[in-house]
């Protein structure tokens, strides 16, 4: 009996020594593949993850990466079930993307419980690097603090002092409203009120009229995707913008602008972590992405997936392991560098830091071609774009 156990242990040790030469990684892209966030994440995020694996030449370095994907339908319960199944039964090592804050927070908890790695690009809640920060979680692309800090501050500085919020009634909307309120008040503005709409919604006219009746200078749209598109469209229809109230889209993706058309979207001020037409690197990368995605340009969520997966693979190579503490430790102590975000760093709380950009949507006459939508108003330097490390209340920060 003892002999048998010893043989087995020896055999196991041999096998493990063998696997140190080649590391097998299973990477699960979990996002919305059919609902209102499917264009801004969806299949594009799978393509972005594959591009990172190709560019890293993972296979040649003995790292075999298998990519799987699933649809969480923006529902936290569905996301939890898939995450659990992936970790327990399918041997998934790292979950990527996960837009929709409520779903991301659920996956965050399961990842912590299982001791795995979660590279979030699509969700916005600052809780991921604040109260609920986890050792294996990296929050890559943007968050509600950065969005509020960009668009919110720019609007108040331009004289739009009195705000009214149209807020999607779930974790993301609440977080965005809260963060923007703080920024607005700090900049000398005032919040007159807010209305919370069910998510996802179709008709926003009732809520828009309530916002109009408030007499605020600006209506802050604390929602995203199709909800924002419909809100902006209907605000134009009801003459709200013509009557002098401004709209502040706090989270607008380039796919939303594409869906609205420049006629309706022109003039909007928005904050993004990435734009395809920023520089030669982003143009070249986006060109490759477009070829695989039938011509559509990448959103910042796609860029974030690429950047996060690339940095993760570097960590795996450097530590020659896929063990959570080792890889995350390497990722946090080495700067990131890639064609989409340039130089960046992963902070102790899991927040990835890079420059953010304030854009304004062009008028149809200013646009010179397909997807030529933004003009750059300001670059928000990495160190002031995101919430200061000590303010998040993350337990990982000493």
């Amino acid at each position, binding site marked *: 009996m003892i002999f048998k156990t010893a043989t087995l242990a020896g055999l196991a040790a041999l096998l493990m020594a063998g696997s140190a030469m080649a590391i097998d990684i299973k990477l699960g892209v979990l996002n919305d593949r059919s609902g209102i966030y*499917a264009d*801004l994440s*969806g299949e594009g995020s799978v393509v972005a993850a594959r591009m990172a694996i190709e560019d890293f030449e993972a296979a040649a370095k003995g790292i075999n990466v298998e990519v799987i994907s699933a649809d969480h339908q923006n529902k936290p319960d569905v996301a939890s079930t898939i995450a659990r199944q992936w970790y327990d039964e399918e041997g998934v090592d790292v979950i990527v993307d996960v837009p929709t804050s409520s779903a991301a927070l659920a996956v965050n908890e399961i990842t912590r419980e299982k001791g795995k790695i979660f590279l979030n690009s699509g969700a916005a809640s600052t809780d991921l690097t604040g109260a609920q920060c986890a050792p294996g979680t990296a929050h890559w692309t943007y968050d509600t603090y950065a969005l509020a800090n960009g668009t919110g501050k720019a609007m108040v500085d331009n004289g739009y002092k009195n705000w009214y919020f149209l807020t999607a009634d779930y974790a993301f909307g609440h977080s965005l409203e809260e963060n923007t309120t703080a920024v607005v008040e700090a900049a000398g503005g005032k919040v007159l009120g807010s209305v919370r709409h069910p998510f996802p919604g179709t008709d926003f*006219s*009732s809520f828009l009229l309530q916002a109009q009746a408030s007499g605020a200078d600006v209506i802050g749209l604390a929602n995203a995707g*199709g909800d924002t598109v419909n809100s902006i469209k209907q605000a134009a*229809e009801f003459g709200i913008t013509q009557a002098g109230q401004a709209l502040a889209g706090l989270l607008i993706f380039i796919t*939303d602008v594409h869906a609205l058309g420049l*006629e309706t979207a022109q003039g909007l001020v928005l904050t993004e972590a990435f734009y395809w037409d920023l520089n030669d690197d982003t143009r070249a990368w986006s060109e490759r992405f477009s070829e695989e995605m039938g011509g559509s340009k990448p959103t910042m969520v796609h860029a974030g997936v690429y950047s996060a997966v690339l940095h993760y693979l570097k960590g795996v190579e450097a530590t020659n392991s896929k063990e959570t503490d080792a890889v995350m430790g390497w990722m946090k102590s080495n700067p990131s560098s890639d064609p989409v975000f340039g130089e960046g760093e992963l902070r102790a709380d899991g927040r990835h830091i890079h420059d953010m950009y304030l854009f304004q949507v062009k008028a149809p006459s200013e646009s010179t071609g397909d997807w030529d939508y933004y003009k750059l108003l300001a670059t928000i330097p990495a160190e002031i774009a995101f919430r200061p490390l000590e303010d998040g209340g993350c337990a990982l920060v000493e």
Partner: protein
Amino acid sequence: MFELLGIPPQALFGQLLLGLINGSFYALLSLGLAVIFGLLNIINFSHGAQYMMGAFVAWMALTWLGIPYWGALVIVPLVVGATGVVIERLMISKLYHLDHLYGLLLTFGLALIIQGLFRNQFGVSGLPYSIPPQLSGGTNLGFMFLPNYRGWVVLASLVVCFGTWFAIERTRLGAYLRAATENPTLVGAFGINVPRMITLTYGFGVALAAFAGVLAAPIYSVNPNMGADLIIVVFAVVVIGGMGSILGAILTGFGLGIVEGLTKVFYPEASSVAIFVIMAIVLLVKPAGLFGRTA
């Protein structure tokens, strides 16, 4: 200035009007469902997808063929209605002798396939479709700014709803239809082609959904999920009104639009469930629905 339940009267009138506008869509869609259920006994779960097709075909007509909104309003219901005729002939007609459930499952499957095809082709962000220039702008009613287009939606919906009700309840053709659902053999014996009449009825119900889709295209973004988002609400409307009741579908459609509009003012978070709460209450008190006949 006096206030009603803490809300200024202007705002309240505004919300009532908005409710009426949303109710126009509920009424049109539940009317189509009621016609199809009342006369064919088919629970048409693909109705939402057919509404979405209406919006997409309008977009295609404009973008690919240059047919403007007004043309689309006539052509699109015919085109989408024709696909309904084909579906009825090829598939649904094989199910009449089976339980309701088979029709429901078939049309549910069709809805998923249609949505999937449009999603693969066009993505989910939606496509822009402008309000026709004749109806752009709006009128200041004093208590609110009413976009001309929304006024037109209410008008068009009322006319179509009334016309359909009149055709089914007050004309000879409607009498044949109703008789054919009671006793197809007898009506057939009078020399009336009952199967063709039923096929055209399904086509007409589908055309109603497509018409609502064209009306919706300029105000909601044209996207593959637009029908799926709406269909559950519309089913609740039909259940509250009484399955198969034409008048019930129309009146509850408008009525529930208004109730939902008011919920958006008093307790916005509950606005998406208000209709289902009412459905639960109605089913407890009057299981056949407000205007339904008990079998």
